[in-house]
């Protein structure tokens, strides 16, 4: 919470500087696909195609740079994450209709869309992790100039964990630091999803 407040302060400090400019607020909202390969059996890899949505809200620092907060929804095999973080966009603005741009998003994903599943004998839950998402794309201004559409490709590295524990029934005399108390076995899957991300979106 403190961190968020701190970030909001930074945002407002940007606002002060840029208030005089014509365009102040920056919004980029994207929809797209993230494509990766996951090993699901001993033989080899299975392709996965997942859905990705993200909206970045912030401010223009000047004509070339914009920055802000982002929040999104990413699906992965078996679960859905909610990335929250900071984003930057740099535009190679030469005053033409098509502009090349680059972006960098950083942050951590929340698992608030996943519930902890508890039965009499088991408990399973997810844990979100850090993500990194560099991208490049093309911005195409609309004729009226109020908004522009964007097409981008990028790479997304997303960390996440899945835990599944079998509960210990009754009291066990035997304790060990590698197993959380109350469980007789725990399976942990640590994921690093490496995705190729293809997105379409709008910038206001």
């Amino acid at each position, binding site marked *: 919470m403190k961190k968020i407040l701190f970030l909001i302060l930074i945002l407002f400090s940007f606002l002060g500087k840029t208030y005089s400019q014509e365009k102040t607020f920056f919004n980029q909202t994207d929809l797209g696909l993230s494509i*990766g*390969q*996951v*090993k*699901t059996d001993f033989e080899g*890899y*299975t392709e*996965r195609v*997942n859905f990705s949505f993200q909206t970045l809200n912030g401010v223009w620092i000047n*004509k*070339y740079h914009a920055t802000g907060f982002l929040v999104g929804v990413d*699906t992965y*095999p*078996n679960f859905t994450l909610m990335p929250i973080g900071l984003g930057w966009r*740099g*535009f*190679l603005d*030469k005053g033409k209709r098509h502009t*090349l741009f*680059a972006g*960098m998003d950083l942050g951590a994903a929340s698992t608030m869309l*996943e519930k902890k*599943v508890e039965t009499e*004998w*088991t408990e*399973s839950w997810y844990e979100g992790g850090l993500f*990194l998402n*560099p*991208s*490049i794309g093309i911005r195409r201004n609309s004729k009226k100039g109020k908004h522009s559409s964007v097409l981008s490709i*990028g*790479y997304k*590295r997303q960390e996440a964990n899945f835990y*599944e524990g*079998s509960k*210990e*029934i*009754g*009291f*066990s*005399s*035997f*304790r*060990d630091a*590698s*197993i959380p*108390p*109350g469980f*007789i*076995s*725990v*399976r*942990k*899957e*640590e*994921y*690093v*999803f*490496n995705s*190729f991300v293809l997105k379409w979106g709008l910038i206001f």
Partner: protein
Amino acid sequence: MKNKSNPTIGKNLHLVLAFMMFLVLPSCHDEVTNTYTYKTSYPVYLEMSTVRQADIIIEPGKELDNPGKIYIYGDYLFINEPQKGIHILDNSNPASPKNINFINIPGNVDLAVNSEILYADNYVDLLSFDISDVRSIKMVDREEDVFKNMYSNFDTGQIITWKDTVLTSESDMMWGWGGWWGRPEFLAMANDAGSKGGGQSYGQGGSMARFTLMSGHLYAVDEYSLRVFDVNKEDEPVFIKNIDLGWGIETIFPFQEKLFIGSNTGMHIYDARVPSDPKKMAEYSHFTACDPVVVNEDYAFVTLRNGQFCRQGVNELQVLDIKDPYNPKLLKAYEMLNPHGLGLAGDFLYIAEGEHGLKSFKVADVMNIDKNQLEFLKSMKSVDIIPGPKSLIVIGPDGVCQFDYSTPSVLKPLSCIQVKNPVIV
């Protein structure tokens, strides 16, 4: 200004592009580290001859690590540390028990005291200690090979014990691949492995002897049988006989020349008027469940719970009419949370509800026990209860606590002996 920044951004873009190539190209698939960590136990073979050679050492009092069975004798409290030995505490003031010493007995599970002689099992042997002076304890007898079921090979004198451990296995696969959407059906596989580990980790597969003394005889039950020892000559217990009981024997409770034996499948009643030759009177059967039992003249109180070893069980308190011990009748069953041990003191029944706490009831009217719940101490996690002469002793995962129960409806905490590493449940 404009002319200056453009080339800079151009350079930046190229850098970003190069960086992306660097990141994307070598790692075009997901990395999965699948770690399965589970508690299990592995067999350790011991030569009984080596065990017998080693001295039984009396050590200075030490901290409780994992309390097992508890026994009160006079002003002393005996707390067993499963497979390790017995703590002896001076409990003349229940508000502040004092640790005196620790008898290091490998393979010890249960104990009983008879006229200043302490009986304790040492794997397959039964040991007797003179405890007339607890500060100078002497071993006076070793009765060999009385718990024979622990032998893996009787001829070579090899016994089998289990040591707890944590194992980890790894793979790089994403389990339960559920396609692109939805949570998978993971559970079956992990569970099987889990319960397999669980089946061994408590040492219950070994010999969990349970001792009780009555009419000059020591009765010990293990998983399958009742063993009778003549202890009329206290320091020289004599093994008399072995009575097969069937399977899943758990507890033994003596009352008025009868033995009430709780098992996974029911309650056995034995007539012990001839102490050396107990005779079966009845067997009351119920669902598979874990079940300790206590009795008074007319009724038996049996708790059934489901647990690691009795997963199909129910959680209830059953009241049986045992006025005719040859024909016990179920009077009523009351729903409980996860009842473990229980203690009966006059008209008051105390039930250890496992991690849920400790309950007390007035049981004068056995048909309305649920309406006569007195207290429910939710923070007092408990597994067993002994109504002692000076205090109610409650054993839980966090330690051994004592309560003043002179006013049965209000338990007054006296003291708690904390264990070294309490389980956080």
